[in-house]
């Protein structure tokens, strides 16, 4: 199985949020990161990160600019996606208390509670053991963070805090309520990049195609 490591093209959903930090973390993890604001940019990606930000803002912009349906289609067809904080909310099949018109991409069979840990004054850092990430605890930075209220049978809980799941995985979808991109520790991004490589390899075997068919443009 010792094939040379590929450099997957991983998009960062760049409508709003801490995009720069994710681009840097992905670059350090051996991926080629690109900012994605348009359906055409999504088409060239082997995987996607949905960053932290305001989930209501992201949802409205994604609908306005025609990204929601293409993104759902890619999720259905197995593209790996990693969401942090607002990105976790975007990957949830259901939000407990959505704002009017707030849509999610969905894909992970879970219900999330927005701002579950409280307002900014309750935002905190704590070390967390994260299944699948070797080398000791990761630093969890929780900012007005959601938690996972409940999960379906196919969802693997990778970490919990205070009894609530805060990191989950279902198939090729990964979500954390906290922000590894703010810490300089890129192990979670390395895990995700490995997930994208694996998906690319199985996709290549299935279709005989290359990992990404479209050239990419670095927008930043």
């Amino acid at each position, binding site marked *: 199985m010792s094939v040379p490591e590929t450099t997957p093209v991983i998009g960062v959903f*760049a*409508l*709003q*949020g*801490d*995009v*720069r*930090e994710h681009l840097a973390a992905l670059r350090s993890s051996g991926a080629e990161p690109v900012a994605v*604001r348009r359906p055409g940019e999504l088409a060239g990606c082997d995987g996607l990160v949905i960053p*932290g*930000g*305001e989930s*209501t*803002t992201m949802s*409205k*912009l994604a609908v*306005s*600019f025609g990204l929601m349906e293409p993104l759902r289609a890619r999720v259905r067809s197995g593209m790996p996606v990693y969401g942090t*904080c*607002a990105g976790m909310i975007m990957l949830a099949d259901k939000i407990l*208390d959505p*704002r*009017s*018109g707030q849509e999610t991409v969905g894909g992970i069979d879970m219900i999330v509670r*927005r*701002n*579950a*840990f*409280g*307002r*900014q*004054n*309750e*935002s*905190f*850092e*704590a*070390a*967390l*053991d994260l299944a699948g990430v070797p080398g000791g*605890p990761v630093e969890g*930075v*929780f*900012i*007005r963070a959601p938690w996972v209220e409940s999960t379906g049978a196919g969802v693997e809980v990778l970490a919990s*805090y*205070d*009894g609530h799941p805060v990191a989950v995985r279902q198939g090729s979808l990964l979500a954390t309520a906290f*922000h590894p991109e*703010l*810490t300089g520790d890129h192990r979670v991004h390395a895990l995700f990049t490995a997930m994208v490589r694996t998906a690319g390899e199985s996709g290549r075997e299935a279709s005989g195609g290359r990992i990404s068919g479209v050239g990419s443009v670095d927008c930043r």
Partner: protein
Amino acid sequence: MSSTSPSTSQPGPLQAPATGTARVKRGMAEQLKGGVIMDVVTPEQAKIAEDAGAVAVMALERVPADIRKDGGVARMSDPDMIEGIINAVSIPVMAKSRIGHFVEAQVLQALGVDYIDESEVLTPADEVNHSDKWAFTTPFVCGATNLGEALRRISEGAAMIRSKGEAGTGNVVEAVRHMRQIKNEIARLKGLDDTELYAAAKELRAPHELVKEVAGLGRLPVVLFSAGGVATPADAALMRQLGAEGVFVGSGIFKSGDPARRAAAIVKATTFYDDPEVIADVSRNLGEAMVGINCDTLPESERYAGRGW
């Protein structure tokens, strides 16, 4: 959940959770990047802002244009009014304290606002000292007209900077001046060697450590937004092209003819700031923009940007 501190609940050998750290405060601003923060004076306006895609709202009693018109001393808003807005929306809520009025800031922290703006739009309470912002769990955003001012605020604990502009005028000229000034001064630092950075720190009247950090990063160590005079989608996109990571819009939205439409348009133009076709498209039929004031006719006493130092 708001009264439950996570510090009481985590079992096991892991370190105790920490609130109010620099990373949590600055990290909060990182989440606002690419977004628009809108001034609102009622819960109804806050909802319009949230529906339009604002990343946060600034709760205040009067928008800067009205503070200008009414005159008198401008203070922190009524706690009832701030709480009403906190309860109306799920996005972060910011509120303003006077410069140096650390008790107003304590009150805002107690109310649970997500960010405190120590703002020159209100009448300064201290002519020498800004508040010690390290003493708070709630993060602060502060205005700046140049790099030295920005770094002095950061050294006092500010976790986010906004260029000041001239609030309540609907005229973007001062915001442009301040953003260009800050970016030019950062660019200049990048060309200096270690020896020269000591003299630069002295010139900027800012801590050497921060000056060195900026020279290395090529940007501020905190998020930089633009504020003061943004009234149109093109204004917002202009500030982003000049280097702002997001924008505050004060009087520009709710002093215009069709606030909901204009708010949504400014949000879209802020995201697609480098795409003139999107900006053109969202700029159509927005109704009347706020009338605006020419800054060169403003007497010195009515210029807010000179408040703070």
